[in-house]
């Protein structure tokens, strides 16, 4: 009988593809025992460390729980703990930079989504659109610099690959109910290099059981766009 793994993790978040996606992917590839909790909301708000989610609880057999929040912080902690962020400080910073840039793009996406007036919506969309173009450019540049082998750095899955994948998944899969046309906005901008990275991440054996849930981003971005007649 296999001993249960130590430590074990609980990730508290909404039952959706949102800012906790990177954390879920990292927990999956870390090969640790983990489970999701979907606290009733907003009922459980006061019971969270900062009134927000996601929250990560690390449970040890013989020690008290270690609890952290803030999605980027949870990701970086897991990525460092399980070897997905390099120990070289400069290399680590280059990976973190990519996450922060993707997060900037996501914030711009939300701004145009929630804009009230038509004028604000147009202005915010233009900002999001421009930032997305710039993000695709820097991401593609990095992939090319690494030989376009499906990884941002080195020759195996790293934090940078996971968070790049995660943010496109949040927008193209997670947000599609709130903005139906988002696929037709984002998909044409994805370079072959990014599509290859997305497919490579999803095909990683470490993600096999997580991807069994469905919601394949690769399926959407590699599906040929129907030709216009």
């Amino acid at each position, binding site marked *: 009988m296999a001993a249960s793994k130590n430590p074990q993790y609980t990730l508290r978040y909404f039952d959706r593809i949102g800012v906790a996606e990177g954390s879920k992917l990292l927990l999956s590839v870390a090969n640790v025992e983990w489970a999701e909790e979907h606290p009733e909301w907003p009922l459980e708000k006061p019971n969270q460390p*900062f*009134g*927000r989610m996601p929250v990560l609880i690390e449970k040890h057999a013989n020690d008290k729980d*270690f609890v*952290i*929040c*803030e999605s*980027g*912080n949870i990701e*970086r*902690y897991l990525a*460092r*703990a399980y070897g997905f962020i390099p120990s070289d*400080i*400069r290399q*680590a*910073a*280059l990976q*973190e*930079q990519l996450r*922060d*840039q993707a997060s*900037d793009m996501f*914030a711009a996406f939300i701004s145009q989504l929630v804009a*009230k*007036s038509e004028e604000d919506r147009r202005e915010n969309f233009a900002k999001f659109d421009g930032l997305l173009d*710039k*993000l695709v450019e*820097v991401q593609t540049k990095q992939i090319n610099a690494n030989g376009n082998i499906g990884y941002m750095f080195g020759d195996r899955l790293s934090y940078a690959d996971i968070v790049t994948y995660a943010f496109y998944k949040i927008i193209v899969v997670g947000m599609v109910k709130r903005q139906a046309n988002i696929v037709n906005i984002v998909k044409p901008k994805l370079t072959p290099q990014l599509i290859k990275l997305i497919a490579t991440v999803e095909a990683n054996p470490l993600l096999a059981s997580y991807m069994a849930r469905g919601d394949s981003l690769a399926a959407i971005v590699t599906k040929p766009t129907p030709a216009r007649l």
Partner: protein
Amino acid sequence: MLSGSDTVYVLRYFDLIGRAEGCRLLLTAANASWTEEHPEWPAEKANQPFERLPVLVERSNGDEWILCESLTIERYLARVFGFMPTDLKQAALQEQMVDQQADLVPAFMAQLIATDDMKSKQFDEFNTLFDRMVKEHGRILSRNSSKQHLFGDQLSYADISLYAFYKVYIVYLKIYQSDIDEIVKPKLTPEIINLILSIEKEPLLAPHLSKCDSMAAVLSSKAF
């Protein structure tokens, strides 16, 4: 210290406190050789890696290495210069506080630009979040034996970030909202004020803070 003595840094940003104060304080505390550049904007936008500021340029041995994103720059400098704990859990607790502080920015902006019908709701959200942040600072401080620091007994990344945070909301953001300091100052507990003033007196920060207005005068001018 992990950087060579012949390494020089350039911090590119606007001539404002803005999002760069944490970077400035870290470079100062590190006793690094650094200067600031204020690129003409938006003329220089296209010359930045992500068309945004701040940007950190690190030059050593004839090489140039560039990093952007304010918090990535901060975490990088904090690690290079030993202000971030090497223990992953301790580092995560400091980074958590910094990320929570950063959450306040969108909330501040939302209440600033809100149309009349949303003003009250957005302000309440900002207010609640700010109260929660002050409470969190107090909670961290209460768990530390030294009351001059958030963690341990030496200047850390968290201390520097906390100081920059309160400077932003009490000094900097007045250019956007003239009464923000009067909204924020009453929320500060005596323990937090004492902490801010202790950090301000840190000798390592003197080269930068001696050029700035002291927060001490601002914090003591609370109308009671």
